[in-house]
């Protein structure tokens, strides 16, 4: 009987600790992030979402990176979450209106830990994940860049190093630090399964080249970009 009481007490205590992060999420994050799903079903609905959907965060982010980033957030998307809300015509091309970009709030280390723990429990459905997974391996940065840029044109929207590449998509030189390898494979394979209205196209990259692209992203992420900036 005593053991049963102890078990129940521990379970309740554990649930209380686990829900602390969810309380913070509900209080501080849901005004910008969707944590229950589904993804936006129209372009207008997409534009109303101020930050990335988090209802599959546990299948997307690397926990260690997430925990650190929440304490010291840094811009990942040079033109904001929805570039159309942060650009204006310039002399040579459309330019980012940096005055409209807002910094992400920083959390205390303990809150970041709680929130990360709660987010890592939010998993993607099997339909979103699909069946493709990262098979490991490595590639040289130069060959990887050929696959990424020359063969598939991904650099049109993504920076492969600070200040080099497209600005509408998130930087990719830190992507492998931020994201799980299986998520990267899955998202490149079928972006619309994750977000039907994402501006990221399905370029129908071959399965073999998707593996090479993720290997390339891992090679890029080995650089210490914060030091180089």
């Amino acid at each position, binding site marked *: 009987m005593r053991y049963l009481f102890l078990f129940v007490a521990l379970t309740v205590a554990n649930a209380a600790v686990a829900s602390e992060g969810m309380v913070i999420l509900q209080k501080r994050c849901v005004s910008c992030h969707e944590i229950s799903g*589904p993804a936006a*079903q*129209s*372009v*207008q*609905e*997409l*534009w109303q979402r101020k930050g990335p959907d988090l209802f599959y965060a546990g299948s997307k982010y690397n926990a260690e990176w997430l925990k650190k980033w929440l304490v010291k957030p840094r811009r990942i998307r040079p*033109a904001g979450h929805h*570039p*159309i809300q942060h*650009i*204006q*015509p*310039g002399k*040579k*091309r*459309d*330019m*980012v209106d940096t005055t409209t970009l807002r910094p992400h709030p920083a959390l205390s280390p303990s809150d970041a830990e709680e929130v990360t723990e709660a987010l890592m429990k939010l998993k993607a459905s099997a339909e979103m994940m699909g069946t493709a997974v990262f098979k490991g391996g490595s590639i040289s940065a130069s060959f990887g860049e050929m696959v990424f840029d*020359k*063969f*598939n*044109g991904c*650099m*049109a*929207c993504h920076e492969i190093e600070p200040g*080099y*590449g*497209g*600005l*509408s998509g998130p930087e990719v030189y830190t992507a492998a630090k931020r994201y799980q390898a299986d998520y990267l494979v899955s998202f490149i394979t*079928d*972006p*619309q399964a994750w977000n*039907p*209205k*994402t*501006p990221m*196209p*399905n*370029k*129908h990259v071959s399965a073999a080249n998707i593996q090479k692209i993720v290997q390339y992203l891992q090679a890029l992420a080995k650089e210490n970009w914060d030091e180089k900036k």
Partner: protein
Amino acid sequence: MRKNKLFLTLFVSLLMLSSAAWSDDAEDNYKNYCWQCHGMTGDGMGLNVQDMSVQPRDHTSAKAMGGRSDADLFKVIKEGGLAIDKSVLMPPWRDSLSDDEIHGLVKYLRKLCQCG
């Protein structure tokens, strides 16, 4: 009984609405997918052009757009630049847009270039 049928029909309709992605209008689709490279005004000078090896087409130019048939425009939006022997930088949008939405974009492009 009739009431039950009405509720069932309403329920199924709502379910279908919630599970199917909306068909968006051409202007919203142009902003969401095309602006990033072709520009806010459609002049081909979008946010991403700085490091592009091939410049995006100027959709406001009757000269640049006039030589393309509606079928060509439909094909390049749906299947990407390589489908008409153009740049790999123009992606295929068939997984993002329905055929109806692509037809809508072709009409929108004709308004931008005032041609065709």
